[in-house]
């Protein structure tokens, strides 16, 4: 799921985990609707969906050892007898490329990349089916970013995880994701298989976004579409298509109705494409 600030991508991630209530619509996980699930059932579901945070510094409690924080997941859901916790924590740390003896240390002893690995280990501790990764690499240096992305891709394959990967960074998405949803001001602009969307973007916003991203191969890039102005406030979005105020292809009809998301696997919300 890609979008710029104010696109609502993080909010959707929180909604998907049932951390925020939805005003309208349905979110179901493994056939159970979150909004109507009993608190006890929701707690059980929580075990099967986990979150990886953006900020490797704020997401770990500075006052407790990383081992204790990972073990929390085990004791909350009573997944293992207490005696087996230490061994399982060691296993989880090894799984994310750290050493079991790191369990006794406090978060400040680790670098940003290592903290992010600890955050992933904590998320994996409950044995989730779904991992929501909210900009998990955007706070990291590029050389570390690539390591964490490789780890996520590897875990996804090995554990068969479903992953909702939230990012503002198109190249990162290109390499990690099977399908992509492009958001703008809380609405889906375009959705489809990653390769397809990146190769043949249909929506003017997707086209502008792709062309705005700097590239190592600046020479062979497509011509840059420069969007004018700033995105409007999410509190007061424009009528009709929310992108029309910055869209280079806008026509008067864009203001009158919200364009529906049309198409089969590759879907676009633009009246010029309909």
């Amino acid at each position, binding site marked *: 799921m890609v979008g710029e600030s104010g696109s609502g991508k993080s909010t959707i991630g929180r909604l998907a985990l049932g951390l925020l209530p939805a005003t309208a619509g349905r979110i179901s996980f493994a056939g159970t609707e979150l909004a109507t699930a009993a608190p006890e059932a929701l707690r059980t579901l*929580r075990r099967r969906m986990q979150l990886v945070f953006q*900020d490797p510094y704020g*997401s770990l409690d500075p006052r407790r050892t990383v081992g204790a924080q990972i073990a929390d997941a085990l004791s909350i*859901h009573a997944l293992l007898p207490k005696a087996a916790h230490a061994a399982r924590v060691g296993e989880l740390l090894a799984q994310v490329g750290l050493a079991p003896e790191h369990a006794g240390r406090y978060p400040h002893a680790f670098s940003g990349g290592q903290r992010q690995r600890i955050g992933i280990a904590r998320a994996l501790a409950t044995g989730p089916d779904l991992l929501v990764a909210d900009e998990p690499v955007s706070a990291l240096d590029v*050389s570390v*970013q*690539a*390591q964490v992305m490789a780890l996520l891709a590897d875990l996804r394959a090995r554990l068969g995880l479903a992953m909702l990967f939230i990012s503002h960074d198109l190249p990162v998405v290109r*390499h990690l994701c099977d399908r992509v949803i492009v958001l703008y001001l809380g609405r889906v602009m375009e959705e489809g298989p990653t390769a397809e969307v990146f190769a043949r973007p249909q929506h003017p916003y997707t086209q502008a976004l792709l062309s705005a991203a700097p590239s190592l191969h600046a020479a*062979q890039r497509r011509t840059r579409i420069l969007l004018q102005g700033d995105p409007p406030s999410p509190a007061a979005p424009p009528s009709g298509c929310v992108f029309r105020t910055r869209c280079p292809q806008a026509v008067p009809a864009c203001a009158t109705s919200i364009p529906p998301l049309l198409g089969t696997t590759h879907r676009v919300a633009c009246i010029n494409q309909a």
Partner: protein
Amino acid sequence: MNRAPIYGVAIIAALALAVPLLPLPAPVSMDVAHRLAGPSAQHWLGQDEFGRDVLSRLLWGARVSLSVALFSAAIACIVGTAFGVLGGFLRGIVEILTLRAVDVLLCFPPLLLALLVVTLAGPGATTLVPVLALVYLPGFTRVAYAGVLTARSQDYVEAMRVLGAGRLRIMLRTILPNIGGPVLVQISLSTASAVVLESGLSFLGLGVVPPAPSWGLMIGAARATMVQAPLLLLWPCLALTVTILAMNALCDALRDAVDPHPAWKPRLRRTVDALAPGLLPAPAGVLDVRDLTVAIDTPLGTIHPVRNISLYVEAGETLALVGESGSGKSMTSLAISGLLPQAARISSGTIRLSGTDLLRLLEPALRAIRGAAAAMIFQDPSSSLNPVHRIGAQIAEAIRAHRPNADAAAETLSLLRRVGIPDPERRARAYPHELSGGMRQRVMIAIAIANAPSLLIADEPTTALDVTIQAQILTLLADLQRERGIALLFITHSLPVVAEIADRVAVMYAGEIVETGRTADVFGAPKHPYTAALLKSAPDEDGPPPEGIPGIVPAPHALPPGCTFAPRCTHRTPDCDIARPPLADVEPGWQTRCVRWRTV
């Protein structure tokens, strides 16, 4: 943490505790024959207006004062913290009830609240404790509530919710330990303040009831005889002051330990003039930096976060200084602009701007260059503009600082127009918080170009911005540079951005330039393993999946003896660890700090 106040308070508390065991006369036993007697062998500090022993009354008074203060602070702490935690964590109706109740309590000045209750319930130590507890309760509620709100918004609390933890568990395990520090500080503050308030009330005759000893009562009583027996007044005053001084010092020490703030402030720092002048080659370009080394004195010894940096930028050219965190790229830019933090100093090197050696200039001369011939743009436009001034005024200030007679108002408007801000007349009157991030960065650029600089240093100017806004700002910078022939030193961590805008690039790692040359050459066929690895780790739409670099950047106080990248390098040989490799010429204008560049 400074331990002296702990010992001070401990001694006072120990004395108060041990009074009953000490061989002292009873504090209430009178000896009217010796009223107002001076110090003697039996009565070290003399006798009061009823002939009672002053020392004994002082120590017993400490016991009364401290126990009243401590009890009331403890009650206030337990009740107040519970209010704050419940209000902050449960929100809703509980929050309104607890917080508003406390707000109302705060409408009564403390002593007034105490007086009101004493009127209703009568004086005495038993009234005093609940009264003081009531007075200090709001402080605890506020501190606990604020702590809970801060903790609540932390990702690690959200992480506990995601794990499925219940409210009680989150409150006890995660939130309480994180507000412990501020609450501890509040306890010490309240206790110290309660001692003052208790003595004040007793002084007025509304606190501790005579004949029980209390410092406030003693001072009140000694006032009547202050001409005949001034010492009688001085002893309790001294005791009270010393006690509060010690307790205040303890509060300060606790606060510093709980909430450490940086021990230094940044100040414009003219560098030590310790260069060997020697024979310097003729300067190249607008900016010419030779052999720049920055030193910081730390408890672990002197570290050099920037070592032997040489670079130049020609007019109309863009040099990108690229590196990851800890590479020293920002420290380099701050050193060039003369804005190093106070702890850092330039230990060697030269920095020449259009031929003038900046390190040999005095501060007023440097100031005339800063913002005029050399201008800067910083990373975070939201914190880099002063929140309390209108943006027009902030731009005009830059103009007037160098050209006091200019028509700053008119120039401000044309600058705003030039950096692409619509409706400049209205926007000039806006405050920074009323603009978007992209607009703020345009304002920063307007400030930077206000005095037609020959050099522009841009430190990560687009890192905080969205992709589409970043494209706007990069285009604006490129246009301005072309239009005005500015030499642009662009500091960034993003290789794609470098590829977009830079004519030449200097790659930094662990405080050194490891490779420099034309961007197309360096990115096309890197001659340093770090450059190559960095390029491979950058995700690119069309390229293969990115590969990370194993290992971490060495700490500045534990640099390897040889090549700083050797521990992470896949081409490492024993030669790499012997000595620090020099910069080798690949071809003119293209250098690498790798001994094996021909073979790898």
